[in-house]
């Protein structure tokens, strides 16, 4: 489980954010001591830091600069300052991404996933492959294979399958899938999502996993 540290002084946001992260299989740690922020971070050694710019005692950007002298822990700046200048500055200090408050929680999760994937190659995978039971999913080539059978997936099917796979045994809402699709392509409507899911099911059936994706009425889908 990846450890994510929340550096944010608003208590309510901290609590809700850590709940969101924990609901999505991350371990959330809240920074307590802003005076010794750097030491605390280096002690905990999280896999990723969500860093607000407006924090007490030390400015988020300065903290990032100090941190970069010591460590390469991925950092996503989370801030209410919506300006290209600040974003460029943060990135130049070594931030991996920059998200503006208020953010869509699904998008935040996608960005966290993307940064972790980029910075940690062993993130639940070896190289370009994900596995599901005996099935191998090569997302570079866009194919699923098992026992020598290879089936090609379309881009949308790939996005859905990898999202389900990363959240295996957990209910994934249509909303989350929709966000993941919009984040990767431009536009998918409700019907297209349904169609893509059923196509994906058929392809999984062909390869021997007929009931891999379950529909939970009113909630979403689950890959078990």
């Amino acid at each position: 489980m990846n450890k994510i540290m929340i550096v944010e002084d608003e208590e309510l946001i901290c609590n809700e954010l850590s709940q969101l992260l924990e609901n999505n299989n991350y371990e959330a740690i809240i920074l307590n001591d802003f005076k010794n922020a750097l030491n605390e971070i280096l002690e905990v050694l999280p896999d990723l830091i969500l860093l607000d710019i407006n924090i007490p005692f030390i400015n988020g950007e300065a903290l990032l600069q100090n941190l970069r002298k010591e460590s390469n822990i991925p950092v996503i700046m989370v801030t209410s300052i919506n300006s290209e200048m600040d974003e460029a500055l943060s990135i130049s200090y070594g931030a991996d991404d920059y998200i503006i408050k208020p953010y869509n929680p699904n998008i935040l999760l996608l960005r966290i996933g993307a940064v972790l994937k980029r910075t940690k190659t062993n993130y639940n995978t070896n190289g370009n492959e994900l596995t599901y039971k005996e099935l191998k999913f090569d997302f570079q080539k866009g194919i699923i294979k098992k026992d020598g059978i290879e089936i090609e997936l379309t881009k949308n099917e790939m996005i859905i399958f990898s999202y389900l796979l990363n959240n295996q045994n957990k209910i994934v809402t249509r909303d989350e899938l929709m966000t993941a699709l919009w984040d990767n392509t431009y536009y998918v409507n409700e019907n297209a999502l349904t169609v893509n899911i059923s196509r994906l099911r058929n392809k999984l059936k062909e390869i021997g996993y007929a009931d891999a994706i379950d529909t939970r009425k009113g909630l979403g889908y689950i890959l078990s």
Partner: protein
Amino acid sequence: MKIGAYFKDNLYKLLIFIVCYVFNLLIFFAFKVEKQVIISSSFLYIVCFLLILLIPYFRKKKFYDYLLANTLALDKSYLVLETLSKPEFYEGELLYQVLYEINKSMNENVRLIEEHLQDFKEYIEMWIHEVKIPLSTLVLISNNHKEQFDKKTKLQLKRLEDYVDQVLYYARSENAEKDYLIKEIDLSKVIKNVGLKNMDAILENKIDYIVENVSYKVLTDSKWLEFILGQIVNNSIKYKRNIDNSYIKISVQETQEETILIIEDNGIGIKNSDLKQVFDKSFTGENGRNINKSTGMGLFIAKNMCKKLGHKIDIESIYNEYTKVYITLAKNKYYDVLR
């Protein structure tokens, strides 16, 4: 300085001269002065008078002509004082000093207003950051407790967020200060972000969001362009027609000098009589009044921002058929100078 007007202004001098001269002649005649003396002293009188009249004219002409011409030529005419050298005649010195004092007091006034404006802008920006904290908290809470908050909450929160953003960009676009950063960005990223932000509203309204090949590199501030595009897409969603195949289509045309971003929808369109004014401040038009959700600020701010970034924004529409917005982004040359 026109010589005719100057003479007219100095007519009283001529009158005084003539009256004095007539009395003088009478005195000459009374004392039976010789003719030659009368003629020669008359000549002297007239030459003297002309010199008294003309020398000041030429002394002043240079200064006043310069003052007038420069005042008219400058686009900021209050800077005229800087172009003048101090005159060498008393009246001119007085005028110069008065102008100097007026200028000084105006500068102080302007500075005071600018300071107020700056304070106000800073307060607005700060307030926006403050208000975003509870807003973010609400977004997170509504997401973590889906059973208590449905999609409607999400959409209303999005509206709140949009209005807050509008204030922020209004404050930024109205200010003389440079608040943007122009660099090369990928148009497709901006378009994707706008779609992602408005995903719920687009899906809720069953609109097709069609994006054609838009992978072009352009020079702009991506945050600003995202806001501008957001305003246009927002309008398209707001003013959709009640038909089954509503769409918003985003495409790009490229020429040698420009990249043109085109946003087209098949919404209710804009009446011809309103079309010219849609970019005016607080203009709501018939659509705004009928639908009753309009502040009339969105497109005004968008236009202002385009102006600052050096982009052009145009709109084309046929009522009850379509609306097309064109954003024209210039290529390198212009920014090579700016950067």
